[in-house]
């Protein structure tokens, strides 16, 4: 194994310090120049919240006012997952249990926790309409449930084929894009929800986003954690 120097040579460190000093001074100036008692866009959001179709301001911003951010975000997530799956040395995307022989206590606890986590995920998705919550929080909990199942030695269920897992990874982006384009065909702008359908469409998009984000997080975790590789990584590297 090649010995990796933990630190760079002195000259590089001094140069890096100088660059950081310069950038730091610039950033400090920039953040101090931010107006201090500006309400930002909060009043604008509050004024238009009624028309957005939901009662929670953050959800309204994410799915309606700045929907293109979220559309591009799920595209980035999907692309990153495709990248991770492509780079994986082992057969990627197969959800094989990582811990093969799990602790019986852990297995029992997981059996108890997994359904509750799925329920919490559904609650968060619904709560996003009027309270903190929404697709990303719900998807995170769903993904965590999947990671917990994999870590506890539960194999990928038979009904969840590799194709189904890949479909779940991309369905959020596809549905969101279809809704966005559908709105244009219906005569609006990109991501301009018709007022009477706004809530329904946002809930539709968020539901599939939740499924996708959950599948993406599980896939990212599984694809980047094969035990044999991990051991080699630990024995090599620095220190």
């Amino acid at each position: 194994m090649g010995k990796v120097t933990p630190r760079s040579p002195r000259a590089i460190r001094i140069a890096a310090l100088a660059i950081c000093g310069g950038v730091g001074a610039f950033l400090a100036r920039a953040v101090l120049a931010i107006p201090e008692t500006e309400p930002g866009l909060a009043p604008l959001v509050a004024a238009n919240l009624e028309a957005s179709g939901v009662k929670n301001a953050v959800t309204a911003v994410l799915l309606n006012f700045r929907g293109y951010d979220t559309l591009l975000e799920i595209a980035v997530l999907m692309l990153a997952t495709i990248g991770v799956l492509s780079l994986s040395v082992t057969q990627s995307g197969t959800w094989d249990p990582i811990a093969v022989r799990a602790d019986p206590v852990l297995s029992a606890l997981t059996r108890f926790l997994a359904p509750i986590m799925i329920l919490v995920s559904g609650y968060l998705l619904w709560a996003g309409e009027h309270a903190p919550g929404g697709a990303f929080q719900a998807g995170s909990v769903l993904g965590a449930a999947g990671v917990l199942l994999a870590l506890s030695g539960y194999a990928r269920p038979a009904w969840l084929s590799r194709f189904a897992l890949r479909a779940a990874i991309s369905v959020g982006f596809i549905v969101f894009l279809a809704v966005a384009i559908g709105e244009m065909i219906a005569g609006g702008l990109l991501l301009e929800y018709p007022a009477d359908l706004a809530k329904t469409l946002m809930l539709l998009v968020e539901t599939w986003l939740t499924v996708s984000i959950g599948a993406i997080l599980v896939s990212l975790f599984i694809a980047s954690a094969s035990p044999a590789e991990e051991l080699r990584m630990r024995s090599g590297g620095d220190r």
Partner: protein
Amino acid sequence: MSQTDLYTLAGAALFIIGLYGLMTRPHLLHKVLALNISSAGVFFVLVGIARRVPGTTPDPLPHAMVLTGIVVTVSSTAFALALAKRIYSETGIAALDASDVDAEENAGG
């Protein structure tokens, strides 16, 4: 110094710490961690400026941007880790340092 200044300056400091680590640490895992510290700094600034008028509802726009940012950071971190792992399995070294790679190749024959 106002409360907002304290938060945004702390965020800028975190960003700089991450930037320094990114430039000086050759190990890829350190670089990924440094990037994460930098993004935490950016989130800190955004959350800090979301509530500049005391007693009012915070601006939901920076909150939504941080929420988006966290998810993008998770996926980019996973992608960076997958790249680092692949580099390690191809070269046996998880670092960006040309001299180390040469040494490894000479030693391995």
